């Protein structure tokens, strides 16, 4: 589904990613962990197509197509979804109107008929249950005045509505209390299927108790320095990141 080869990228003059290699197959959940500043969020931004991130080397293939060549909207239309670490507040645009527009844009691009208001409402109701969202929230302006937890829930709600094939969750667990974490994880887990893949970016192992990954990768200084299964996350939780850093530095010498 996704194949990242020796991906390097910088923001302004700062080189952040230094040759990332990662292959994700259909149905897999990959966790990407790593200390602060290791490049986790940059990877998410590059995949989603955020401006100001310059790819200096490498390729990213998404279902056989060159992802880096696509506009952010085309990436979304082809099934990529980024759950933002800091979702944007958009005053004056209701959540429902926003999602209806987005969903119909994606449907149009696939040659599907657009949903009318009634069908949209039915779908919305069904997906709202997944993240225990109440109806009032859909009529509020996108993320405006939402608590941290509500914003993250709204991201997962959008993901459920748009049904992407590859979701990138950028520190979706940050700022969540345990109840919100459970709700968010439940939303994600209910979307797991043999056709859908996930990249779960997190600093802490905690989220991975709820969203159990197939693979865990550790990012350090813009490179994947260690890969393993969920046991690796537990080891990191126990020992911290220092031993990874030491290993990586030693390998570099």
């Amino acid at each position, binding site marked *: 589904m996704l194949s990242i080869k020796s991906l390097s990228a910088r923001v302004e003059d700062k080189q952040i990613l230094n040759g990332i290699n990662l292959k994700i197959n259909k149905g897999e959940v990959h966790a990407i962990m790593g200390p602060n500043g290791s490049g986790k969020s940059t990877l998410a931004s590059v995949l989603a197509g955020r401006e100001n991130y310059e790819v200096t080397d490498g390729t990213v293939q998404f279902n056989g197509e060159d992802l880096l060549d696509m506009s952010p*909207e085309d990436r*979304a239309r082809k099934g990529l979804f980024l759950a933002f670490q800091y979702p944007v507040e958009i005053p004056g645009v209701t959540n429902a109107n926003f999602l209806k527009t987005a969903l119909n844009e994606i449907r149009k*691009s696939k040659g599907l008929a657009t949903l009318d208001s009634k069908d949209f409402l039915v779908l919305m109701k069904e997906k709202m249950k997944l993240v225990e969202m109440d109806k009032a929230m859909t009529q509020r302006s996108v993320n405006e005045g939402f608590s941290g937890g509500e914003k993250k829930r709204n991201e997962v709600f959008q993901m459920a509505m748009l049904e992407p094939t590859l979701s990138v969750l950028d520190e979706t667990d940050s700022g969540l209390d345990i109840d919100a974490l459970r709700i968010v994880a439940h939303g994600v887990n209910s979307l797991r299927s043999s056709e859908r893949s996930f990249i779960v970016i997190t600093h802490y192992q905690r989220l991975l108790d709820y969203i159990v990954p197939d693979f865990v990768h550790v990012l350090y200084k813009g490179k994947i320095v260690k890969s393993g299964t969920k046991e690796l996350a537990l080891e990191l939780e126990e020992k911290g990141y220092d031993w990874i850093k030491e290993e990586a530095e030693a390998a570099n010498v």
Partner: protein
Amino acid sequence: MNTTLSTMPEYLTRYFENNNLIGPVYLKEIRKKAIGRFEELGLPTTKHEEWKYTNLLPLSKSEFHPALYNTLDKHEVSKDMIAGKDVFLLVFENGKLNSELSSYENLPKGVTVGDLSENLEHPAVIANLTKHASFENEALVALNTAHILDGAFIYVEANVECSKPIHLLYITGGEENVLVFPRNILVAEKNSSVNIIESYHSRNEQSAFVNSVSEIVLDQHAKVEWTKVQMENQNTFHIDYTETKQHNDSIIDIHTITFGGKLIRNNLHMVLKGQRINSNLNGLYVGGGDSHIDNHTLVDHAMPNCLSNELYKGVLDGKSKGVFNGKIFVRKDAQKTNAYQSNKNILMSDDASVNTKPQLEIFADDVKCSHGATTGQIDAEAIFYLRSRGIGLEAARTFLTIAFAEDVLNRISNDILRDELKFRIGNKLNHIY
């Protein structure tokens, strides 16, 4: 250059003399005083503090003529019926009421609506006309006052609620550049209620000069909603002066929606002459091309315990210019005043600009006042957020701009009018990209 600005052009003098043959004696006297005052004042130049950013030179260099009328047909009017058909409709063709195209039969008992020229001796007109909009220091009020004849007169008796909105629909345009002097007056007696739409449209692409003045008087507990809509062509000059006078416990909502025009200047002067008054003033201006849109507002809190709330938003593209000047006076007696003001602008191009100036003058000590002005571009992060959900770049920009503008339109209570304006603003913004 200065001679053009300070003296009355000959074509106007001739027009004044003919016009002043019509009407009651009291009015002829007022017109004479007004024309004298206009000649003394002259058109303001940019040296005048209130006209610093709005240069009337292009106006004074053009020649305008009073136009023929009664050539409009029903079809031309229907496309401008932005508040739907279920209204009391007064159509003004080049400033004059066209009674064939108007329909305001079956008015509720206690509501008088009609041509100002036919109501000049109505007691409410005699008591109020020119009593609120002073021409002493306002050259363009003087110019309008010197030509008072046509316009709308609306009188709502005490305890009467006007069942349907009253739409004053002005269509301007002729073969030559047309000059019109609309003069509107509304007197809402105690505990009455009425909704007015005052809209301006162009019949063709010819230039025109609309010099309008409205006087709006609310007695105690009266409730008025007044929506001004300026949809004129890109060659039109429109200078409006609107004065509201409110007494105890009255509520007014004034919306000023401007779609463009060559040079638009709206002066809105609100006087709160009683207690527990509520004054809401909202504005939206959407400029493209070389439009110049200037809103000068003044909210004058003279008495205690009142609330004023002001929100003006602008979207400026092309080489258009916006000007916002919002004054709030809180006089010494106006304790417990709440006065809020906000002006927000989005610039869509590098050549568009805006000058915004909030001005609070507070002489009372127990008040709550706030003001703020912002000018910027559409939030890039918000655009990325929308794009990351599959919405294209252009659509995302339009979507966010419309959302920004709709905030003002959402304050209009009439569903048909609000939806029509949203639709047309949406079209205009779509067209900008």
